[in-house]
């Protein structure tokens, strides 16, 4: 009896963080008073976080698989949570709680009338689904759920700026989605399956194959566009500052990381037979993206534009770590991923307070250390974390990353490492310029200072406290990242989803066999059923 209940719970747990925000998001569409709506949205975010933490606890032992409709892995769609998926799910759920809090603290009657709370909840659901799905085509569906909600949030309010940036964002992402569908079709045409684990088995059985590599590179382009790697990330620095503060914080902290999660999943678990070309591409793109982000941050004068460019830079570091393709580099990237999500969240929440207090989006008013000393301290800490200087978690993760780069050995790895060091320095300079431009100096008399209520300021402080916690608990963080990297390098995910028995595919049905019960099971055939030319 007890084991039965346990089984039900473990099979339902991967679904819980997905269904909670989607279901409660539908409830949020009902007409109700604002405080009820806020309470419901906050409850949904907290419940999602609880489920994500439970999932993280449960995946320490192995992969949790939830078979939709009871269909076994290669036949039906599975929701599979391994360490990486649960980790990402938890990080995004944390960001979700802060986002809802800030939305509640900054009333926005117009956007709330047009269901910004429900759309945010759908966005959380889509993000969770992309982290937990075990199927390539379902990943496309998850991306669309997430992106449609984000499109609506990006243009909700219809200011000129939002429409301009939102239209560009939508067109860019729809083009990338079309490429993703093509990649799904090609993967199915070549390997005859769409399940991640089954794809991994079949591409391993097929060995290095140019068509599979081409599909992999096509997927790399798609995820590079979603994750804002250099030539495809031009939409990002304009879009994130155009949306309201709370939504912008979630976009910046999580949405690019979804693309990176997909890159990690595809190139460590699925298409790992011929890593030469994807790794070279990732290294080059990563190195250029870092420099682009750092120089872009230097060139801007607005709070959230500067921070958006640092987001682009952090994506570059992650691509660099992934392109090095060693266990140490993977561990360092995973640790950096966690640090980057939390510190970006904290930075955008700080920017929300700073913009509201000074009444302008420009980093112009000086002397705010007089009025907001704690915020100044938080900003300095986060700036050090983003740049990667010692008393911060950013230093630990970046040090690990640079060391892995130096151990990489190839000329390209050295070049990318040099780019990482240079762009860290430029990022530090850009962020210290914000510090000296906004917090330092003497406040001009004629500029007004708006006093903010504590619920509006507290998220920034709490998120900064999380950044401190990451620095204090860097050891456990790196330990978890190490275990996750080991999982990704082994076949644990594949075995967890597919089982360790060889798969018995039934023969293709013939017309005369339809009414009969016995269809002789065929042994595992690698070639696709239609035997491609």
């Amino acid at each position: 009896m007890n084991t039965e209940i346990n089984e039900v719970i473990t099979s339902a747990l991967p679904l819980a963080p997905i269904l909670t925000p989607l279901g409660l998001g539908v409830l949020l569409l009902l007409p109700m008073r604002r405080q009820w709506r806020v309470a419901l949205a906050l409850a949904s975010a907290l419940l999602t976080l609880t489920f994500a933490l439970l999932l993280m606890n449960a995946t320490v032992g192995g992969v949790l698989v939830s078979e939709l409709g009871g269909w076994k892995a290669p036949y039906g769609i599975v929701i599979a949570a391994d360490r990486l998926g649960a980790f990402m799910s938890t990080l995004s759920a944390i960001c979700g709680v802060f986002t809802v809090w800030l939305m509640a603290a900054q009333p926005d009657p117009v956007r709330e009338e047009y269901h910004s709370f429900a759309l945010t909840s759908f966005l959380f659901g889509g993000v969770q689904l992309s982290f937990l799905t075990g199927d390539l085509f379902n990943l496309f569906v998850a991306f669309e759920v997430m992106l449609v909600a984000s499109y609506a949030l990006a243009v909700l309010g219809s200011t000129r700026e939002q429409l301009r940036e939102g239209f560009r964002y939508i067109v860019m992402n729809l083009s990338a989605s079309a490429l993703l569908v093509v990649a799904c079709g090609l993967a199915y045409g070549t390997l005859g399956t769409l399940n991640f684990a089954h794809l991994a088995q079949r591409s391993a059985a097929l060995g290095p194959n140019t068509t599979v590599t081409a599909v992999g590179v096509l997927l790399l382009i798609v995820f590079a566009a979603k994750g804002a790697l250099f030539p495809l990330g031009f939409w990002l620095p304009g879009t994130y500052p155009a949306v309201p503060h709370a939504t912008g914080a979630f976009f910046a902290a999580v949405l690019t990381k979804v693309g990176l999660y997909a890159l990690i999943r595809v190139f460590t678990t699925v298409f790992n037979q011929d890593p030469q070309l994807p790794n070279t591409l990732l290294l080059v793109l990563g190195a250029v993206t870092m420099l682009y982000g750092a120089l872009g941050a230097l060139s801007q004068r607005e709070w959230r534009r500067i921070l958006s460019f640092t987001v682009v830079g952090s994506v570059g570091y992650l691509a660099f770590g992934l392109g090095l393709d060693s266990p140490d580099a993977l561990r360092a990237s995973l640790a950096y991923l966690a640090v980057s999500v939390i510190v970006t969240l904290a930075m955008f929440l700080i920017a929300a307070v700073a913009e509201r207090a000074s009444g302008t989006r420009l980093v112009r008013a000086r002397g705010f250390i007089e009025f907001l000393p704690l915020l100044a301290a938080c900003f300095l800490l986060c700036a050090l974390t983003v740049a990667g200087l010692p008393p911060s978690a950013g230093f630990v993760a970046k040090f690990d990353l640079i060391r892995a780069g130096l151990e990489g050995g190839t000329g390209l790895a050295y070049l990318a490492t040099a780019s990482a060091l240079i762009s860290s320095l430029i990022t530090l300079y850009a962020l210290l310029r914000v510090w000296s431009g906004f917090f330092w100096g003497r406040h001009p008399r004629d500029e007004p200072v708006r006093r903010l209520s504590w619920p509006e300021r507290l998220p920034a402080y709490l998120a900064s406290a999380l950044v401190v916690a990451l620095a204090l608990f860097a050891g456990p963080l790196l330990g978890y990242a190490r275990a996750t990297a080991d999982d990704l390098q082994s076949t644990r995910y594949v075995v967890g989803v597919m089982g360790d028995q060889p798969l018995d595919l039934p023969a293709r049905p013939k017309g005369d066999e339809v009414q009969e019960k016995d269809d002789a099971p065929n042994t595992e055939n690698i070639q696709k059923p239609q035997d491609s030319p």
Partner: protein
Amino acid sequence: METLFAVLVGLLVAAGVFLLLSRTIIRVVLGLAFVAYGVNLAILTVAGLRDESPPLLTLEGPYVDPLPQALVLTAIVIGFGTTALLLTVALRAYQVAGHDDVAAFGDNLARNPDAPDGQHADPEHLSPDLPEADHADDTAVQMAEFERLRRLTR
């Protein structure tokens, strides 16, 4: 059959990309629709096109694989939704900007960030912008607060 479809997919995607590069918003939307159609045909093509395989179980096999059709169906539904959303955004952009050229929204980086945002070319369809002046009435309060803070910190 496959060759014909490959050429067709190429033509559709080429037309779509050509329209995507246009400056007119509605052409961009149509271009994305063309690309989506090309993509759907591509899935059907890579899954194998045969005259002799019927899709129904009442006829003699071997049957055509039903999964790509399910994929295409899903892609069509999602494409329908996103196209509808994009059309709504395009309409809104037209209402707010007054014409449907992408230049209507101005240049991104040369923008003056202090300029009032939300001037409407079409007074019939005002966008639900937050009025810029929603904090203007409490400027006096803010200034008093500011003075108090200055006194405190001196």
